[in-house]
């Protein structure tokens, strides 16, 4: 697909030949993650997170299918069915903990993946489609995570549903009828729970479909790399297998160890204890907070406290959605020809300020509402938009970037031009000979 020197798939046995002529699925896999996909040789561990996100999606789908075998989407029994999974179903506790913490794992991995894309300019030509499909995946993940969170029908998830569906009531005129239509009732109840369950089961498969498009779109230009310099020739790349399968495999092992620490030792550390109280439509928790991965957006929502032309509530909802939708337009907001922020001294400073700003928004999103926190949130939310709408376009216009390396290989070798070629690849330097011939 990507480069001329990609090794074509050659079926060896009569059976694989037979299959290849009828359904070239092994050929597809070989071209996607096998020796047939040449990848820049200088990828760092930030490039591990795409695979980890795929792993997280698979974990969520498998554990989710199993949990659905034991869960009742019945308002009077949903909470109890989750407790039954924890107590009576064989190994149910571990499956639920994996699914519950798996959502956090998925978002943590996705945030690092997005961060990688932002830092190394993965949203720039020719990978705009990859980026936009990624934003679609992220939006679908947010919807899926929200609806999944509602299913245990605990206090926090019930009131979360109340708050999130309340967004729709901010829309002028049709808002309140629309909200009632979407909930199938005047408040979250049986109808809402059943449709959330149905959609929570459906959307991961939609995500999997968009993931396939995301990878398909990626494999046309090929993977980016930390220098942001285009691949020039075969020396700049390695076949995906075995080089990146091995590297990703190692990273996966480390990630699973960290994930296991959460599942087995800190299963509640990322959740809220109020979700162990059964939903009560008549009592609101003292402090409604979403899961950690929504904190920054929740902070933006809460930053609007004054009516200004439109009601404050509508401003908050619009700002929150815009904060995500802005990412669609990054390609056109950032006009710098340089992809990697490593070579952009001015933008690099603003990039890290943005990271700090999002972390601050996250803090405000889970903090109690006090005048200081509200002010902090307002400043941080304003800066978030300032960064994307003003700073980013201006910096990309006036910044003088550092000298880019001439090639990926040059950036890797640090001037050692006589390095042996990777195993199994032709070399132009002539410094290596086949080990067998040396005997």
């Amino acid at each position, binding site marked *: 697909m990507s480069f001329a020197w990609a090794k074509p798939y050659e079926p060896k046995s009569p059976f694989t030949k037979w299959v290849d002529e009828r359904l070239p699925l092994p050929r597809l896999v070989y071209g996607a993650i096998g020796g047939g996909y040449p990848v820049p040789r200088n990828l760092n561990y930030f490039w591990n997170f795409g695979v980890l996100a795929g792993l997280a999606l698979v974990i969520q789908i*498998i554990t989710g299918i199993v949990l659905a075998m034991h869960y009742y989407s019945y308002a009077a029994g949903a909470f109890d069915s989750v407790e*039954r999974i924890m107590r*009576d*179903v*064989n*190994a149910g506790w571990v*499956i639920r903990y994996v699914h519950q913490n798996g959502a956090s794992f998925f978002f943590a991995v996705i945030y690092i993946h997005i961060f990688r894309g932002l830092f190394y300019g993965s949203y720039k030509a020719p990978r705009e489609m990859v980026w936009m499909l990624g934003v679609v995946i992220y939006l679908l993940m947010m919807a899926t995570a929200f609806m999944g969170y509602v299913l245990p029908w605990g206090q926090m998830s019930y009131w979360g549903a109340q708050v999130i569906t309340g967004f729709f009531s901010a829309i002028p005129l049709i808002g309140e009828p629309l909200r009632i239509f979407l909930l199938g009732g005047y408040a979250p109840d049986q109808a809402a729970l059943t449709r959330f369950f149905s959609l929570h089961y459906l959307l991961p498969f939609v995500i999997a479909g968009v993931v396939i498009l995301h990878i398909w779109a990626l494999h046309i230009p090929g993977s980016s790399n930390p220098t942001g310099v285009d691949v020039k020739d075969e020396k700049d790349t390695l076949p995906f297998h075995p080089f990146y399968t091995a590297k990703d495999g190692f990273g996966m092992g480390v990630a*699973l160890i960290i994930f296991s620490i959460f599942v087995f030792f800190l299963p509640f550390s990322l959740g809220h204890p109020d979700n162990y109280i059964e939903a009560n439509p008549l009592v609101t928790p003292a402090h409604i907070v979403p899961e950690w991965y929504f904190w920054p957006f929740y902070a933006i929502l809460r930053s609007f406290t004054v009516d200004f032309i439109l009601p404050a509530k509508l401003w908050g909802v619009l700002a929150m959605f815009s904060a995500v939708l802005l990412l669609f337009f990054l390609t056109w907001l950032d006009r710098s020809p340089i992809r990697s922020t490593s070579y952009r001294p001015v933008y690099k400073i603003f990039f890290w300020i943005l990271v700090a700003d999002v972390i601050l928004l996250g803090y405000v999103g889970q903090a109690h509402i006090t005048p200081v926190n509200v002010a902090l949130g307002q400043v941080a939310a304003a800066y978030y938009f300032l960064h994307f709408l003003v700073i980013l376009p201006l910096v990309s216009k006036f910044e003088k970037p550092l000298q880019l390396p001439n090639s990926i290989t040059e950036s890797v070798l640090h001037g050692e031009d006589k390095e042996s070629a990777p195993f199994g690849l032709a070399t132009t330097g002539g410094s290596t000979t086949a*080990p*067998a011939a040396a005997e």
Partner: protein
Amino acid sequence: MPGEPVVDAADGHADGVRRRDFINIAATSFAGVGAGVAVAPLLMQMAPSADVQALSTTEVDISKIQPGQGIKAVWRKQPVFIRNLLPKEIAAANAVDVATLRDPQTLAERTKPGKTNWLITLGVCTHLGCVPLGIGEGETRGEYGGYFCPCHGSVYDTAARIRKGPAPKNLQVPEYKFTSATVVQIG
């Protein structure tokens, strides 16, 4: 370092075994064991859960069952036949030459000592799991006076032993004990 020979994994191994082969096998095995451990809970959740297993004992009051009568109780969501045998039914069961049976068992082996009139069996045909007739008032009991499964024609005698038809085994006797003269605990 200049001048030092490049160490190659294949060096000094005439049989072609490389150190990398060991790493390959070790890493793959480790990943395989890990995958196996990860799959275990996904399979275990299929087995009966604790609340299902908690249905495993049932107490039945048998004081109202007259000789010649039988009742259908429920244990593990399955029917259990509890029959108070008449002396002539006991005699008929004992008259059979055990050696001629498909699943040789005496009535004494299928009841508790001193309580041979209480025949307690699962009401599940050992052929394909249907519920045989004969426990209810007026139901056909088949030619041996026990139970009859009309679905595929299995005929059981007064000790609920298989006598004719496709079923391979006698109706199963569950674990049970008399907790008092009138109460039997099944399971």
